[in-house]
């Protein structure tokens, strides 16, 4: 009786080779692999001629609780190679771990995650730190590569694995859930030992110590039966390297799958050249300079580092270090991203981000045509049929009235399909936001071959349309996209009935908002606030998640409001949007009281700040005036003397100042003769040139008044000039010319412009 337990690191090409060689050599009676035991009867599906990466997707729904998890395989996964090698030597194959629905897998998204990062809270592991120090390695990934990802004698490898994983287990003891899994795996091993002379077990190295001393037993492992009302299933889905590399934190596995695929395919030496070639293509595509000399330098450095570090062949960190040293031409804002295990931080050098993307790879798996279809496909078919759509028939229009609950449900399904990029689902017309008054939607739905293909591909996200769309949504929200695009996704998700986004995506989004640019903040704030206030139909009103995002955005907006400087900096729409967004969010109670107080304080401070851009200063004053009614703290009010406030602004910036002021507080100020008088005084002091310079901004500022108020203003101005107020002040506002004359003047303007363009005086886009 021989029991060989191969404790591996998941997704390690070196381990995959070791496993393959061992099975070829021993030709065992049984090959047992860590994987969901309930899938064993369906192993032939997994052994079809797929193109990896593929994954087993397991879903589980019980009452309100749903959970989905993946067991991903690449071409170089030890488990994948073990099953294939076992098949070739005619061994009995089995998965021996608990099914994915078992409570031992609650919260686990990636069955093949790395135990070394499964250490919460992140207490240091002295032995691992010492390993890093001894091998001068930044992080455990580099240590692993240094010790294991090189050509080793199999016996040496086995011994090193044993020591490494024993240490890992001592530092990171097995929890109750691990013990349950290991007990179950042991039962499988024991039963196999009773029936076969030689048994090879391939499992995560962490479990190796618990399985090695299994003894033969005739009792088969106890059946694990799900509860009766549970809805569950496991299916093969095509997978991508991108998704494999995007597990973060304690769900993560080995990084850079694209690179290790090259190592598996071509060997470590050629992998380096292959990777370099791809990196150059990518960088040059992105218009980055990457000269031949740079490449020679990178290759030389990588080789030199490998020799210095005692690597037989260049390894991932050597290559990355070589590239960083030779290609980066300036100071970095953030440490090299491969020196720690975390999502790529903001401000990381974009060159390094691109390099890592290349190593991450963009391979997409493909399933063999005989594979049973993922469950999502059936769900999509059912949905299509429910609208009377048939395969390769004509487009079916679907019209929905979102005021009706039943229609809203149908619309949600269509929106989810759209999120999943299911081909043939097109929204022809519909409201732009959930709080639109008009809530009619029109869709065109078709069912084609591409629909099938896209649904199979989307199967990697989940088993049902809802689960898959939810996960896809989280992915979209975590993507590195402009803020307005993210807000758009967020708002559209309410149509899809997926408003409660998961906590991680929410955190990522809030983080993104903390870095929002000046021109992004104001509009995003207004859009979110509108949902928070008005979305009665889709439940956005008072939604705590929206409130959390509002809080994050307000915080960022405050940074901008505080930081803008330079009294003569011109007024831009983003200044006004910023002030409006901040004012409204406080006025309508979108944020916590403390934040509101900070906003008020900022407005007060900036209204008095001589270094504040005048437009923003006026806006801050306006915001203060329009908020002051609610403000009980009377002493903190700004001085009521509007004349003094006005005179504090430089005369040449008067127009900007007033535009800001009226944009925020036109209603509150109304027609204030004393203010008009003050404006008049300032204007009288301006020279002709100054007056002309400030005129456009002045016109802009008074454009905030509707005609009736402008009439009242005209009366005040007439009085100021000592002219007799005309019986109808609106006459002053009427153009002196007749409509015909205006049309004629406009035609003349156009003719002049055309000639000007002909002669090349003006650029072409200046056509009136």
């Amino acid at each position: 009786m021989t029991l060989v337990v191969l404790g591996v690191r998941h997704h390690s090409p070196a381990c995959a080779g070791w496993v393959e060689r061992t099975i070829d050599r021993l030709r065992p009676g049984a090959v047992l692999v860590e994987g969901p035991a309930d899938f064993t009867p369906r192993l032939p599906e997994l052994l079809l001629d797929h193109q990896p990466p593929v994954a087993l997707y397991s879903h589980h729904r019980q009452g309100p609780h749903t959970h989905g998890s993946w067991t991903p395989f690449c071409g170089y996964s030890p488990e994948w190679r073990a099953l294939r090698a076992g098949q070739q030597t005619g061994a009995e194959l089995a998965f021996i771990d608990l099914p994915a629905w078992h409570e031992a897998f609650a919260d686990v998204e990636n069955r093949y995650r790395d135990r070394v990062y499964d250490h919460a809270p992140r207490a240091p592991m002295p032995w691992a730190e010492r390993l890093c120090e001894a091998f001068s390695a930044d992080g455990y990934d580099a240590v692993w590569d240094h010790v294991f990802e090189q050509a080793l004698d199999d016996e040496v490898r086995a011994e090193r694995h044993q020591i490494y994983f024993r240490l890992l287990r001592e530092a990171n003891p097995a929890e109750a859930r691990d013990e349950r899994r290991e007990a179950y795996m042991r039962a499988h091993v024991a039963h196999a030992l009773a029936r076969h002379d030689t048994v090879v077990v391939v499992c995560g190295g962490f479990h190796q110590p618990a399985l090695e001393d299994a003894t033969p037993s005739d009792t088969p492992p106890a059946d694990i039966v799900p509860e009766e009302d549970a809805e569950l299933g496991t299916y093969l889905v095509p997978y991508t390297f991108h998704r494999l590399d995007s597990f973060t934190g304690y769900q993560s596995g080995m990084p850079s799958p694209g690179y290790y695929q090259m190592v598996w395919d071509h060997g470590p030496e050629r992998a380096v050249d292959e990777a370099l070639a791809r990196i150059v293509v990518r960088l040059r595509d992105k218009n980055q300079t990457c000269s031949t000399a740079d490449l020679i330098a990178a290759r030389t450095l990588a080789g030199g580092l490998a020799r210095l570090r005692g690597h037989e062949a260049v390894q991932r960190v050597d290559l990355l270090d070589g590239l960083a040293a030779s290609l980066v031409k300036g100071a970095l804002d953030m440490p090299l991203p491969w020196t720690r295990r975390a999502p790529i931080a903001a401000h990381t050098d974009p060159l390094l981000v691109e390099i890592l993307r290349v190593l991450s790879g963009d391979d997409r798996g493909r399933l063999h045509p005989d594979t049973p279809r993922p469950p999502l496909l059936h769900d999509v078919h059912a949905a299509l049929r429910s609208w009377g759509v048939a395969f390769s028939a004509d487009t079916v229009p679907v019209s929905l009235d979102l005021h009706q609950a039943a229609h809203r449900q149908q619309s949600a399904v269509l929106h989810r399909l759209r999120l999943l990029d299911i081909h043939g689902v097109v929204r022809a017309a519909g409201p732009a936001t959930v709080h639109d008054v008009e809530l009619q939607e029109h869709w065109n739905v078709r069912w084609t071959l591409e629909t099938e293909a896209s649904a199979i591909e989307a199967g990697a996200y989940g088993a049902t349309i809802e689960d898959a769309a939810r996960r896809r949504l989280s992915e979209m929200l975590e993507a590195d996209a402009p803020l307005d695009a993210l807000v758009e996704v967020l708002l559209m998700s309410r149509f899809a009935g997926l408003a409660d986004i998961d906590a991680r995506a929410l955190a990522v989004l809030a983080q993104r908002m903390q870095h929002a640019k000046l021109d992004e903040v104001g509009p995003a704030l207004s859009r979110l606030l509108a949902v928070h206030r008005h979305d009665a139909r889709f439940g956005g009103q008072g939604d705590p998640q929206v409130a959390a995002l509002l809080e994050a955005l307000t915080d960022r907006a405050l940074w901008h409001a505080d930081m803008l400087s330079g009294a003569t900096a011109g007024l831009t729409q983003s200044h006004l949007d910023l002030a409006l967004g901040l004012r409204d969010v406080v006025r309508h109670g979108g944020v916590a009281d403390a934040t509101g107080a900070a906003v008020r304080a900022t407005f007060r401070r900036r209204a008095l700040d001589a270094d504040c851009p005048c437009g923003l200063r006026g806006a801050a004053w306006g915001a203060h005036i329009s908020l002051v009614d609610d403000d009980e703290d009377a002493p903190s009010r700004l001085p009521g003397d509007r004349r003094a406030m006005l005179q504090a602004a430089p005369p040449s910036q008067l127009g900007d100042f007033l535009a800001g002021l009226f944009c925020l507080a036109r209603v509150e100020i109304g027609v204030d003769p004393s203010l008009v008088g003050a404006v008049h005084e300032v204007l009288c002091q301006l020279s002709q040139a100054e007056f002309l310079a400030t005129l456009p901004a002045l016109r802009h500022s008074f454009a905030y008044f509707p005609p009736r108020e402008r009439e009242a203003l005209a009366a005040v101005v007439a009085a100021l000039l000592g002219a007799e107020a005309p019986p109808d002040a609106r006459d002053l506002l009427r153009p002196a010319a007749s409509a015909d004359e205006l049309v004629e003047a406009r035609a003349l303007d156009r003719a002049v412009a055309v000639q000007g363009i002909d002669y090349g005086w003006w650029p072409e886009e200046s056509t009136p």
Partner: protein
Amino acid sequence: MPKSKSRPSPSPDLQRPPAEVLYADELARLAQDDTAAKPPGWRLSLPAVRAFILGDGDRDISKKFVGAPSLVERAMVTLATNRGLMLVGEPGTAKSLLSELLAAAISGRSTLTIQGGASLIEDHIKYSWNYALLVAEGPTEKALVPAPLYTAMKEGAIVRFEEITRCPLEVQDALLSVLSDRQLAVAELEQMLFAKEGFNLIATANTRDRGVHEMSAALKRRLNFETIFPINDFQVELNLVKREATRLLERSGVHTRPPDEILEILVTTFRDLRTGVTTQGHATERLSSVLSTAEAVSVAHLLGVRSHYLTEGKVSAADLVECLAGVAAKDDAEDLKRLRAYLERRVPKKKGAHWTALYEARHRLGT
């Protein structure tokens, strides 16, 4: 970062002996045991250089530089190739120390140093003339006064160029042909000086000086850049601040140091404002003023002295706010705004009586 471990100096009358003198014994032992292959012109092999800088407990070699080992490795390998090394980073991150250690280990001398500055001219880099001899004998080798670059090329050694971005561009560009062709024309003698094996250049520059004199793309191409970051580990930095502050305070005749809670707040605040992320994971605006560990030490020193001589040994959060304002106002008026925003909106999210006190003292910044 600790500048160097204090050891009995071999020449007690020197204020600060260079690394090759201070650690002569270690260098000699390393050279003796060195069996690995050495790059041409190097005194030590790469593993021995690494051991010299990062320490080796088994051979009683002290650790002289706290930082990522991979950085030291990249730096060494760069120097063994035909590109120069450029160390960049915030002030006070031990760039010059690393450059000195590398030069001492590789060439056995760290004193071939050019100190960059606005008044630097090419003569200070390459060579100049003894004018009396020049007039008497005409241009001869005897009349030539070599500058560090010349000597380094002639002898095959590492030349150090400190604060390179403080030099005018045309002076920086004098390095171009030296770095690419490894030769220097001495037109007056109608001679070429060809660099011996072992010659290379380590430049340092401060990230705060970006824009003082940008570097030309041509020079950048000939250098590999390495960024040195401030100390990553909170505890390591806090301990260093405590130790150094105590040392400075004792020198000022103060035998107590500010309470640990205050120092913790000080170091946390520095780290938050330096990295732009608070310990709670919230983003904050980074200060452009220098927030090095050395600066934190000097604030701790200041707090200690103030409390000892002015407030009967009490250090309050308000004192800390005032010191922070002093640090922030040094460089950039915008920094005061950033600091205010940090105190107003980030500090209240932190838990603890001292943080609350800090928040309440925020008005000390003024408006």
